[in-house]
């Protein structure tokens, strides 16, 4: 359901009839905390933009950088990874691995011209449903500002 703010904007530009850019964000959420938070957020009827399509993983450390690379390559505008707080990972030390991978990935993306905000790693425990919603909203706004990535146009069509 489109957000009220966006409808005003579209009113101003009716002339150009510009459809506002809706970023496509992939969210890899850890089943034990962030996914549980999203579930709770849902049942507690929190409002947050629908731009993030969620892929459930058992632990944030299951997310392979190649998924993220592939996501961007195939049209994702942003990727969000949600995991348990450091030290509270259900699988003891999974989130430490994720932190290292994502940090390395972010550096690589900065070399490949992918803006930093497009990839985001957040520790959201099962109870932090408020934070979950804020993160989603914030990320959507940021990616919207960055505009579409559509990685495909980078190369001459073949």
């Amino acid at each position, binding site marked *: 359901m489109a957000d009220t703010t966006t409808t005003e904007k579209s009113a101003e530009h009716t002339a150009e009839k510009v459809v506002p850019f809706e970023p496509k964000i992939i969210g890899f959420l850890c089943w034990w905390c962030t996914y549980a938070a999203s579930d709770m957020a849902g049942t507690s009827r929190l409002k947050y933009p629908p731009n993030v399509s969620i892929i459930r993983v058992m632990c944030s450390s299951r997310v*392979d950088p*190649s998924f*993220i690379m592939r996501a961007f390559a195939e049209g994702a505008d942003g990727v969000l990874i949600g995991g348990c707080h450091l030290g509270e990972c259900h699988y003891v030390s999974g989130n430490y691995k994720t*932190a290292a991978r994502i*940090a390395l990935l972010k550096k690589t993306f900065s070399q*490949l011209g992918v803006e930093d905000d497009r990839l985001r790693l957040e520790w959201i425990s099962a109870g932090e449903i408020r934070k979950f919603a804020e993160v989603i909203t914030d990320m959507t706004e940021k990616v919207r500002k960055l505009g579409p990535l559509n990685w495909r146009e*980078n190369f001459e069509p073949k």
Partner: protein
Amino acid sequence: MEQPKEKLKLGVYWAASCGGCDISMLEIGEKILTVDSLADIVLWPCIADFKYKDVRAYPDKYIDVMFFNGAIRNSEAEEIAHLLRAKSKILIAYGSCSYEGGIPALANFYSKQEIFDRAYHESQSTVNADRIEPKTKHTENGYELYLPEFWETVRMLSDIVDVDYFIPGCPPAEKTTWSAIEALVSGNLPPTGSIIGAGNKSVCDECPRERKETKIKRFKRPHEYVAPDPDQCLLEQGIICLGPATRSGCEARCIDSGMPCRGCYGPCADVYDQGAKMISAIGSVLESEDGEEIQRVIDEIMDPAGLFYRFSMSHSYLLRRRLVGAKEEMK
């Protein structure tokens, strides 16, 4: 090696290549004579002059085995690629450049304009006041000169044409080359599209060093290690070695001389993007339970993209740096 009915027709071509692969063909030593006895060289621009028209003159599928090394940088390479695809029965992408982009593919970090600026204007040794840049078409006193089109992105051969087999390596090791030739001559070849002459496992399989399951506190940059411990795995000594994510076949020749593997044999069997896999592996072996410390250690790796995609830039999901508005972000 039983004698085939009549000699095979063998071709070698070099596109965006350093010529290393051509020379490494000779690494098989005296066996080149057996090759000579089995096949005739019908095309090898590196050692003998050939003209396009000669090649075009060949009937289709004329060349039995075509070794194509070098990446696709410009239109000419693309054109010849299509041509040779047509003219040869078996087209083999020989060497990292044709198989996965190799060193030339590192140009994908820059747009075409940035490359021309660097080459023809900013480089210290160039004096080009009136900013002349090469054009694809140029007429000079009545003659029309043509240059191939300089593509924005360096592609690997399999992006252009269907490639029957791939032989990785920069350059492919003698063992790899020979086992490929043997397979070709004997005819028992794996299904098209697969890699021949190299193993399925990672370099670690052939690496003699000992692995002690140690976690790494921090990574060492090249200038920090002078004489690593000869027996212990380099990665465990904090030296980033791409061995675990690189296909075996080179008998770990770089590691034997104390240098970490740079991943020239490309990703292992089930992996497409070698870089991503290496990033994941490096992230996993870091030993720290403190967020800031992890960030600090990762920051010490200066050029992750260059390090992990040194050879396989074209064989990765993202292929190149982003073109739109890329200039300002480039650190």
